[in-house]
């Protein structure tokens, strides 16, 4: 049976009258890449801060590695690594000195630390830049340094708080690959983001948060099964008479449809051969069509259906 690494029970955090975390519970197993997904202000960072005992909370209990987490739980903290959205390094220290400083907060033994630093440098591919100062590094290299500083002490639990915000696609992919590699090496990962594609790509289990509450939790397939939509068919048409439109809307498993700007969208829930049936209606009515494609539901659709608002809308 897998060990529970993080257990949050009934967590409540208030800021005056506002409830930032509303009876939030969570359980993360060893070896998972656990995604905390939610719009800005949904309570992801508050959860992380409570988890790290950087914020006090009004109610609930947090256990990490089976022990209660408190501000002085240094035996727990030594096995936690944190990688934040902002690059937190000293401009006055070189790449090596920066990693040495943050690794040294956890590991006292000089020889052991040296090995850890070398491993971290190798892991993020900064071998050629160890004597560089952060100001001389590009944005992507800085992010890698930020990661190296967070993982050099080889933590068992790594928390990544939106590490890909304002990162170019190439660096983003490298970061995501790195996270998966860390996980393969045995680390349990908590990954917070409002980029659902990333969470969908790397996370083994996902919790969706909104207004301080957990609105859904499971694997990406489990989450997608929670919603009505299983398939969206999109067909480009020059025209669509009302008769044909009504015929399509009344097809079995079609629960919604719309025709806008020469594009017909048909929303299906379950069933097989939905596309064939829609095309048959078009042929019967002698209607020519252009591109035809289908879309599977995304986590955004899951969020939209559960909360009634799109993730992206919330961010804006």
């Amino acid at each position, binding site marked *: 049976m897998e060990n529970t690494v993080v257990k949050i029970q009934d967590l409540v955090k208030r800021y005056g009258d506002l409830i*930032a975390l509303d009876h939030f519970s969570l359980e993360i197993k060893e070896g998972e890449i656990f995604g905390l997904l939610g719009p800005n202000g949904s309570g992801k960072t508050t959860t992380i801060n409570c988890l790290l005992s950087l914020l006090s909370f009004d109610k609930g209990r947090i256990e990490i590695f089976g022990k209660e987490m408190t501000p*002085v739980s240094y*035996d727990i*903290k030594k096995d*936690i690594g*944190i990688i934040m959205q902002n*690059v937190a390094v000293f401009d006055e*220290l070189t790449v090596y000195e920066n990693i040495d400083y943050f690794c040294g*907060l956890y590991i006292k033994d000089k020889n052991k630390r040296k090995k850890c630093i070398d491993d971290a440098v190798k892991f993020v591919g900064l071998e050629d830049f160890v004597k560089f100062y952060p100001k001389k590094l590009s944005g992507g290299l800085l992010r890698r340094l930020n990661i190296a500083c967070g993982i050099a002490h080889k933590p068992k639990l790594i928390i990544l708080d939106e590490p890909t915000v304002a990162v170019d696609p190439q660096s983003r992919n490298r970061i995501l690959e790195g996270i998966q590699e860390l996980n393969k090496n045995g680390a349990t990962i908590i990954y917070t983001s409002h980029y659902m594609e990333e969470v969908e790509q790397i996370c083994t289990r996902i919790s969706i948060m909104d207004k301080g509450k957990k609105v859904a939790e499971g694997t990406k397939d489990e989450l997608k099964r929670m919603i009505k939509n299983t398939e969206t068919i999109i067909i480009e048409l020059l025209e669509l008479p009302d008769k044909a439109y009504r015929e399509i809307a009344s097809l079995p498993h079609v629960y919604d449809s719309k025709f806008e700007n020469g594009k017909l969208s048909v929303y299906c829930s379950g069933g097989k051969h939905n596309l064939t049936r829609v095309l048959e209606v078009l042929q019967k009515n002698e209607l020519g069509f252009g591109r035809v494609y289908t879309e599977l539901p995304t986590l955004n659709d899951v969020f939209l259906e559960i909360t009634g608002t799109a993730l992206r809308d919330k961010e804006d």
Partner: protein
Amino acid sequence: MQVFKAMLRIIRKRLPSAMIYIVVFVVISILVTNASTKDNKFEVTKLDICVFDEDDTPESRALTDFIGKINDIAEIENNRDVIIDSLYYKRVNYALIINKGYAEKLAAGETADLFGSYHLDESYSVVYMGQFLDEYITSVTAYLTMGKPIDEAISCTEETLSQHTDVDMLRVDKGGNSHYSVDFAGYFQYMPYILIAAIFTVICQVLVTMNKKDIRYRTNCSCMDSSKYTFQLIIGSGLFVIAVWFMLVIIGAVLNGEMYMGRAWYAVINSFIFSVVVTAMAVFVSSFEPKENVLNIITQVLSIGMSFLCGIFIPMEVLSDGVLSAARFLPAYWYVRANNMIADITPFSFNEVVQCYLIQLGFAVALILLTLLVRKVKYNSAAISTNVKKAVVSD
């Protein structure tokens, strides 16, 4: 001691800026010390005079010889352009022409048109030579009137004018005592400026860097005890401050030419206490996490402002009562006041010196308490701003 080591590395990067202040201070102190030493001495100044003797008589030669005894005779070509160039470039201070008929006129007691000259207007050499020639001629004329022959009148005049008075420079009594002279007190008087500049330049910047929000967040997440972290910051800051203070104290002893003795130790203690106050000020300012350019402005305003208001750059006796009343609310005022007492510039009172020390320490304690308050308010306001941000999203 990971934090301590990182702090020293960052201090090392900032050290050149602080050293500029210290080196400039030491150089100025050396110059001031040398300049003040010269004020105590007097030596007769000799002028470079060139004499063109157009009369060429025993009387005129006697005058030329006598001028040569009390000044330096310079020989240049008797050409107007050459003479003017020599005066302009200060190769000679005065060009005297003994006119033809000098001896005859002198014997006849006539004093008009005896001499001609080339000189630069308004130079002190003109006044000096004018007075000298007047005295010489007046004296010779007087002896002639007394019935002495010309050669005797000249020798009597030379004898009279050769008499000189020993001059000792007496300075105005500004205070000072055997172990702590006024010059030495001057060195300590300027020390607050350099302490503020050097400590602020390094400590403030280092503390701002070490306590940067993201870095502090990452440190707080680590397994390092926050009290150990703070302790290492204090050790790092303290070590730098003591090093700067100690260096200035040693330089002071070297410039003074002797080790600290007697009353001078009070000044050493005074400077140490002021270093503590400046450190507390630096910690207080750094708690606002100012940007580097803002910090530079704060450093300049504090160091120069206090220096002008509290009697560091301008002696306290010159400052108005209004300025001094305002300066009482600044720690540098009490430093300078103690320093003046130690140097006997104002009457020395051991109790008052100790009182000045205690007031300075009071400033340090108040600044530390204010720092704690600011940190607490900042922490609370950070929580409130998070609250507001979240409230907007939730609505």
